[in-house]
């Protein structure tokens, strides 16, 4: 597959570049743009980004590998990041991860044969209050996971129905 930016993309990239006094800071947003367009930033896309911005390929590669949110290879349509860091681990993060593995028939780090889901075990996503939790494709958090919630999520995603942002209130003190 040949990776190319369209005219519109290039216009957007110019707009991004205009925000910064130098080109280098545009690396992150342009990588996002590329990932949103191609679904990943594999070495070929990294080269495309580097040549579009006129930056060294090595620099772009370094940035991509630093952030886990950039996908260095092709992933499924939906990337399921299940947190197993301490709080989630204590509240059943591994159980949720294993349930995903069982339901999807894949291990963490793998993609389903139909290319719909990629399952990843990740470190803390900063939502310990709602453990165990997960994130869908670098976007929405799904909190307080249960097996039922996982079932529903997978069914919805199979119909391309993305989960909605969920507002979770913290228990407040009543009589102040």
């Amino acid at each position, binding site marked *: 597959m040949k990776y190319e930016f369209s005219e519109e993309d290039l216009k957007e990239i110019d707009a991004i570049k205009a925000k910064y006094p130098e080109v280098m800071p545009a690396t992150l947003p342009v990588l996002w743009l590329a990932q949103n367009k191609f679904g990943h930033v594999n070495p070929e896309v990294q080269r495309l980004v*580097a040549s579009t911005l006129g930056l*060294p*390929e*090595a620099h*772009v*590669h*370094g940035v991509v*590998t*630093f952030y886990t949110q950039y996908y260095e290879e092709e992933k499924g349509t939906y990337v399921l990041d299940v947190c197993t860091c301490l709080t989630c681990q204590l509240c059943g993060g591994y159980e949720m991860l294993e349930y995903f593995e069982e339901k999807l028939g894949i291990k963490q780090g793998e993609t389903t044969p139909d290319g719909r889901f990629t399952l990843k075990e990740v470190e803390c996503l900063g939502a310990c209050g709602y453990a165990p939790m997960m994130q869908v494709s670098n976007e929405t958090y799904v909190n307080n996971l249960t097996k039922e919630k996982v079932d529903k999520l997978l069914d919805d995603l199979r119909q391309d129905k993305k989960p909605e942002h969920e507002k979770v209130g913290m228990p407040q003190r009543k009589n102040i």
Partner: protein
Amino acid sequence: MPEIFIDGQRYEFEGEHRVLQFIQDLGKEVPFFCYHPAMSAPANCRQCFVKAGQYVKDRETGEYELDEEGNRTIRWFPKLQTSCNLQMVDGMVIHTQETDEQVARAQKDTLEFLLINHPLDCPICDQAGECPLQIQTYKYGPEGSRFEVKKVHRPKRVRLGPRVILDAERCINCTRCVRFTDEISKSHQLTIVQRGDNNFPITAPGREFDDPYSLNTVDICPVGALTAADFRFKARVWEMNQTPSIDMTNGKGTNIDLWTRDNIVLRITPRYNKEVNDHWMPDEARTAYTLFNENRISRPLQKLDGEQVLSSWNNAYATLMEQLEEVKPAEVLLVGSPHASVEENYALAKFANLNGYRKPVFLRNEEKGKADGFLLTDDLAPNTNGCILLGFDELTPAEFSAEAEKAGLIILVHDDFISREVLTAGQLDGKYTVIFASNHTKTTKAADLVIPVTTAAEHAASYVNVEGRIQRTFRAKETKYNKRRLDMEMSEGRLDRYGTNFDNWVNEDNKIDCLPLWTFISNLTGYMGTEITLEDGRLIMSEIASTIDAFNGVSYAKMDENSGIQLDTEKVSKKVES
């Protein structure tokens, strides 16, 4: 004048300085890994911590505030500072590890962190013996590690490019190599990938680290993470000995060190010279070490019935004398060489003068478009300007070819004219061809008499670079005719000192049977009955200095003191143009 107090000592300074460099310039020490004087200081190894502060002054009176004991009170900066990027200001107070317990402790703890994932493989690591991490751990490090968990594993034996191999586990992420490609060679080929304890430097995927200066990263790597593909596992550094020299592969005159063991040159590294090459050298010049060891001519060769056979020195002198007598002086064509030193060319010129031959001519050896504005030059020879300053006539290949046709006897030095397609082997037929050379080439194969001469690794002689700077080499390798132990100018490694001919690590065959060109000439004139004495480079240079204007005031002592002497550039550049 602004003043600074380092470990209780007062120093004056002018202009802008960084604390670490200033301390080093004083001959004192603060440990560091990532800092390099030629590059930016990102302060990411955190090893050069010092305690910094200012004496407190009363704003109104301008008097220093004193404590109860009458000492000036110091207002310390809230935390320890990295001295590599700490700008010096007037009245600054610095405490290093020598006087401050807290600094010493901080450095020790930083080292403990750096060593957490560093493999304990010094016994098989090439860097051992010249490793800042090893040395500074001995000096400033902790006695042991409190880290008892499994170390992080990272890629090993990664071929970064044709010449550099990476062991990512040893890397401490000082980023010197990355900064080198960003700031010095400007190829931007390296970056640090991953994060946290998985960090290591590498190229973009699918790209090779083929920077023409890539091996400099091996020199500046403060650990054994980057090693040279053709030197790794060849020798322990303490077995070798290090001799200053000059690069022979181009006209820049890059200052180098030759590393020898048992009279074999094993590697070449750059030697700092602010005026010429700073800390760097091109990769091409490093691979030239093979020229000193391989394909060498040992003992004179003579053509008998169309075939070259090994001869003897006596035979070589006698034959050459005979042949010179057979031709008229006007038919003798002496060709000096930009690949030979000033002293060798001078010896040739003196020989010509003595016997009434025409003054030597020379051809430059150039490859247009090779120069990169840094350390590579179009000129492929180290001493083109030397030939010009000696007053040799420069010939074009066509002119030279015509001259060669006319000559009855040709004496060449080093130049491989046949491979360079300046001459054909056929053109040399029917005339007696003598060549002074160190390595076998197509031209030496075609010559009637081949006199093996010393290379830059075996003689002390000087070379004038493209900018007109004269610099000299030192003897690094023994020949059959000199002894390291008797030659007070040769450096001596551990093996050189303690090895005897009966040890299996000493090989007599590594000494080449060759003579300096001037020694051969001076012996030859002795046999011819018109003796001139050309004893050694140092004396020849003083003779040159007193007889040739351009070399006025040049001496080995002065060259050694100033790492080379800039000759009159006016004279050089004018001649180069014409």
